[in-house]
């Protein structure tokens, strides 16, 4: 058989959190690596 599965597109968790003004706190609590991403270009390569 050749079966089609329709996919729906929904706002991402990130978009929902941003719209609710909760993204900053969420990322601080749940993505500690966010800091070093922010400043990755300040470190020597590697």
């Amino acid at each position, binding site marked *: 058989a050749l*079966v089609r*599965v329709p*996919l729906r597109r929904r706002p991402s968790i990130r978009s929902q959190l941003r719209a609710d003004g909760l993204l900053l706190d969420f990322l601080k609590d749940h993505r500690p690596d966010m800091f070093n991403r*922010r400043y*990755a270009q300040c470190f020597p390569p590697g």
Partner: protein
Amino acid sequence: TPSLRLGRSSEKIYNFMDAQYFGEIMLGSPDQNFSVIFDTGSSDLWVPSSYCVSEACALHRRFRAFESSSFHHDGRMFGIHYGSGHLLGVMARDTLKVGGLTALNQEFGESVYEPGATFVMAKFDGVLGMGYPNLAEILGNPVFDNMMAQKSVEEPVFSFYLSRTRSSYPEGELLLGGTDEAMFTGPINWLPVTVKGYWQIKMDSVAVQGVSSFCPRGCQAIVDTGTSLIAGPTSDILSLQQLIGATPTNIGEFLIDCVRLSSLPHVTFVLGGTEYTLTAEHYVRKEMLGDKELCFSGFQAVDIVSPEGPLWILGDVFLTEFYSVFDRGQDRVGFAAA
């Protein structure tokens, strides 16, 4: 229950923060419906269990084994690592229906513990992995392997159409068993799978405005419907962000001035000698915040090192522009203009 079979130490490339495309599946008899991400970047099927203790499960549909007449107890534990935590669960077997297709005795995971708030907000209940078997944490055949073994698909091929706009119908489509000519134009360009785990291929180079800027001697890329953006090694991505004029926010995103889109450079991925060019319209994600439009870069830094070198990830930002075909019969990936 035998010893806990923890997932492999390699961190799964789950970034469900940005996942946007979901489809429905049914498990058990009578049918129990779940909304899942069809994810070519993993190979496990799992849904929340009615025994789940996490806050994240409270807001999702949960599998009730005791109500299914086709349920087979397994009981072994499984664990899947995430960037943001660890998912724990129990293995089970039951009848799975996807579209009109039935896979009997499908091994899947019932999650009993789900990490953190990532899933509390999620619009999906679980994940249906469509990678190769050796990527699986859960014993037994991944779903598409089961469908091939039971000869329930016409060809050992599946394909994805993902629409970039919310207004089009369908917003996306997974086709099991072949391709849909109505969803793409021009020829399908094929690339051999280099390592059978992820759908991993060789990328020749990445050029910004025609200048071959990254991966000049070739590198490895995976085609991952479970990742929203295009990801690459931090050093390359930081340079790329500068070339497209994106500036970092204090939470690791990269913003672009929406009025400058028309003047931003094209980014071209060369795969199998064919150029796949994304304009700013393609690689910038627009988001309304109140009455204000924000423009985010569709590139993100993810450092995944494989024995073949650092991996790039071609996620939805790429797959909305290029129809993708996954051929397990000839272990190859095909792209065509969506």
